[in-house]
């Protein structure tokens, strides 16, 4: 449901284009929420409207996400007429996504397409002439629910959510039966039975939630940074993976200066490869800039291929640098040029030759394993790939947890029903169905009630 009272957020700049991305937050909690993820000279809750603040975005564990500029527009002098915060971060889609994820953990939801403009209109911030345009945005949007699921992926999700919602409605019916038909000689549901049912639904929702990382990979692809010292064969590896000579390869260290971006699809998963400048200390301005960009690529990648030359051996110090910028489980260590080596012990890591292609299959397997995990998703699995669906599932899960608390505290059915109904509503939002009559219909079809 579109709640105009909610605080909403979304990227305000097109995805993945430009050096800077802007994330917009609008609504009466915008300032509080932005403040909670932002570390600057002052709390922006104390700041004036139309001021810009430099600082860092950090997550709940205080991990650094990005340096940002944050602009405050207080109601009514903002684009939407509500309190608005604009966060300008580096133009990498992953950073933007991460910041939005942080916001969604707070009391913020993702904006519906056209919603900022619509709010602007409803708050008299844009004029009548623009009304038509607003309507166009609203109606041209792909309705975010799965009603008439468009592709196979959505179809599977829609199906799973329907099944979950139905079992939730069954559970709810048992409760309602006890409330509205207490005079009837029908069997009522025991508390531990109820807990069992709710727990099972939570488990199923968790499975769907867990598929989200995978779903996002399927939808957005995986960013892979190829990193290593100069001349270890990064560009050669890129070329081999692409099966074309895209990047210049030469025996001169420092050949690659800028980041080269290419895409390959492996088993339906899109890998976005970033070949980078070899990392070493240098006084050369251009090369220094290249290294800075390599570092940025590391921060923004889902996966780092850490390439080493077997002859020179594993580069301990570069690995330590990498660990400053990304997590251990995102790094795949690669030992290259095994065709040249006669050493018997080649060290840890995946051994390949970017020249002969030896070991490349192993590398590809490892890349898949690292991104998709060991989870067993097949073409028949229901997978969440849309952030709004993910959010609805989270909310449904929260409501079910509330329900469990209510059951354990021995609250009577009408209290538990509030939570279960909320959960059913959230699931209904994914598939575009409203709850109201369903419970009674369910009762009438399953139980012999009525005098």
């Amino acid at each position, binding site marked *: 449901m579109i*709640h105009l009272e909610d605080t909403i957020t979304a990227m305000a700049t097109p995805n993945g284009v430009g050096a800077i991305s802007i994330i917009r937050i609008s609504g009466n909690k915008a300032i509080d929420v932005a403040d909670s993820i932002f570390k600057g000279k002052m709390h922006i809750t104390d700041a004036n409207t139309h001021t810009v603040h430099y600082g860092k975005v950090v997550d709940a564990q205080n991990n650094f996400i990005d340096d940002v500029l944050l602009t405050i527009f207080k109601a009514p002098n903002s684009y939407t007429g509500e309190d608005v915060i604009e966060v300008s971060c580096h133009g990498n889609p992953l950073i933007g996504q991460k910041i939005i994820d942080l916001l969604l953990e707070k009391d913020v939801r993702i904006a519906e397409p056209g919603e900022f403009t619509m709010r602007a209109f409803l708050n008299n911030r844009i004029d009548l002439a623009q009304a038509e345009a607003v309507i166009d945005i609203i109606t041209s949007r792909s309705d975010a629910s799965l009603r008439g699921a468009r592709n196979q992926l959505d179809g599977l999700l829609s199906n799973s959510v329907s099944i979950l919602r139905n079992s939730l409605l069954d559970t709810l019916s048992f409760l309602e039966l006890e409330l*509205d038909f207490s005079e009837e000689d029908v069997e009522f549901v025991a508390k531990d039975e109820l807990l069992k049912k709710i727990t099972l639904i939570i488990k199923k929702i968790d499975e769907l939630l867990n598929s989200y990382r995978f779903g996002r990979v399927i939808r957005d692809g995986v960013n892979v940074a190829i990193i290593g010292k100069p001349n270890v064969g990064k560009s050669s590896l890129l070329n081999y993976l692409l099966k074309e000579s895209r990047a210049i390869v030469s025996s001169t260290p420092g050949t690659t200066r800028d980041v080269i971006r290419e895409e390959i699809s492996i088993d339906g998963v899109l890998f976005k490869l970033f070949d980078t400048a070899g990392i070493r200390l240098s006084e050369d301005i251009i090369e220094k800039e290249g290294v800075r960009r390599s570092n940025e690529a590391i921060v923004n990648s889902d996966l780092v291929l850490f390439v080493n030359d077997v002859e020179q051996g594993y580069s301990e110090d570069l690995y330590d640098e990498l660990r400053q910028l990304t997590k251990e489980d995102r790094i795949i260590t690669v030992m290259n040029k095994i065709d040249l080596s006669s050493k018997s012990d080649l060290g840890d890591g995946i051994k390949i030759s970017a020249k002969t292609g030896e070991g490349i299959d192993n590398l590809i397997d490892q890349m898949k394993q690292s991104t998709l995990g060991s989870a067993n998703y097949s073409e028949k699995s229901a997978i969440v790939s849309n952030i709004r669906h993910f959010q609805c599932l989270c909310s449904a899960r929260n409501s079910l947890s509330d329900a469990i608390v209510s059951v354990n505290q021995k609250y*009577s059915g009408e209290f538990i029903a*509030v939570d279960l109904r909320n959960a059913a509503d959230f699931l209904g939002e994914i598939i575009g169905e409203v709850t109201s009559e369903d419970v009674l219909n369910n009762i009438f079809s399953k139980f012999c*009630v009525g*005098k």
Partner: protein
Amino acid sequence: MSNGYDIIVIGGGHAGIEAAHAGAMMGCDVALITMDRFALGRMSCNPAIGGTAKGHLVREVDALGGIMAGTADHTGIQFRMLNRSKGPAVWSPRCQSDRKLYSEEAYRIISNSPNIEIVEESVVEILAAGGKVVGVSTASGKFINSSAVILSSGTFLNGKMHTGLVSTTGGRYGEKPSLGITESLSRLGFLSARLKTGTPPRLKKTTINWEILEEQAGDDSPQPFSYRTDKSVFPFLPQVSCFITHTDDSVHRVLEKGFDNSPMFTGLIKGVGPRYCPSIEDKIVRFSEKRQHQLFLEPEGLNSDQIYLNGFSTSLPANIQFEALRKIKGLENVEMVRPGYAVEYDYFPPHQVDLTLETKKIAGLYFAGQVNGTSGYEEAAAQGLVAGINAAAKIIGKRELVIRRNEAYIGVLIDDLVGKSTDEPYRMFTSRAEYRLLLRQDNADRRLLKYGYEYGLIDKAIYNELKEREIIISKAVNFCNDTKINANFINAHLNSRSLSEIDSTETISKLCKRPELGLSEVLKFVNTTEENRLFARALMENDLVLEQVEIELKYEGYLKRQDDMIKKLEKYESTSIPLTLNYQSIKALSAEGREKLNKIKPRSIGQSLRISGVTHSDIAVLLVYLKN
């Protein structure tokens, strides 16, 4: 005006008497045209008022100034509060009534009202001109004019009763059908459709073997429905019990013999029946795995020799009914006074009325009760009251009364009818109310008395008493939030009840949130100052206040969540849509959304949100459009 009235009410059933009474209280001249003056408020089916969710409706009708609650109090012969083992939101009062006395009491109230004239006639036509109602004509050829007509003719429109394959015309046992009204309304452009309902056989009291049956008595300290009933002299009548028995296989086998001659199964009955009130033959067929069905033997009245067999509604042939009855435990020698029957009747799918119950097509014409597709006395009374108030308000120039879903079951009822329409008889259930925790039978006066007072149906003294009570309630809530209980005082008590002790001090509110502890139990340990002690004692003696405070404290978290939801939706509820909005011209609406909106013509965005088939982008489009 010699031949005219401010308001005409057609039909003196539960809807009609509330409508007439409300109109009269508001100062209008009312003609209550009904076929039989001694059938006012007659109970067509079971001799009971209230029950789950219906009891809430009765309390709400009372808070608005209606007569159902008081009438039930004066004629009730068994009172019970259902669902007492559950939370307060689903407690529902119910009573067994003396059918005859109920109707007599209704007659007494209506005939004593100086503004109501009871006209014993059958209306055959509703007349309108230029989109406005102008009056009615009757079977005896009279024309009675009025600019406000409330149709509350119940199950009588083209009524047809069935027992086995024998069908007779009539609206109710022994009463004639109403002919002509449906046709006259069809000519005015109204849609009508057919519904069905049924009633069980009546048994002769003295032929039942009571000794072997399970007894179900009323509550030990019965509570009245009405806020205005004097509790010191309540109950007014001697109290009696109901009894319980069951069908079994042998009963079912007999009933099955009649299936070939069932008007239901042979398709003779075309109307749609209520799923929550299935006939016994329906239950056997649809739930064949169920080997027995529970039946209640309910007295029809103190001096009546008839017993109503609740749970055994049927339209099977009379001889089959009789044979099956005798197989039931306790009924081995029973005599059947009258067989059960089904009745089919016309109704007007209720999307044709507005939230005021005025029809959208014809100004001044209101529908209330069974004609809107509901079933049940309470549902009828609630609508009659709202229609009566609105008809009178329009005449005397007061604002219209539209009760919201978050204010009352009455709001849920009417909003459901108008927004969803219905193709089966509609009955109230607590699960229909999304704000169930707030809409309790214990706070109906706090929710609605203000409206009863505003429209002149509730005395100022009663209203003032409530206002004073509200002040005490909020004082008491603050008191409980601020006042702490000392561990020294209460721990011994907590121990004795094997509850966990408190550390040093704890507020009353916090203690009261424990499921095991009642508010008055905690109040005993207030010992900070003399003033506080006195306040606590006074609170303990004020039952009405105590109950409200306790609920507010105990369920605070839940109540707040429901309040928050209301606030969230407030913007939608208060964004109104003109009835004249031309949906066809709004191209951006989805095809289904446009069709539904056009059919229902919602009053507000909130109402549109609840219409199935209207998508969220439709809502967004509407919001933008309305802003223009």
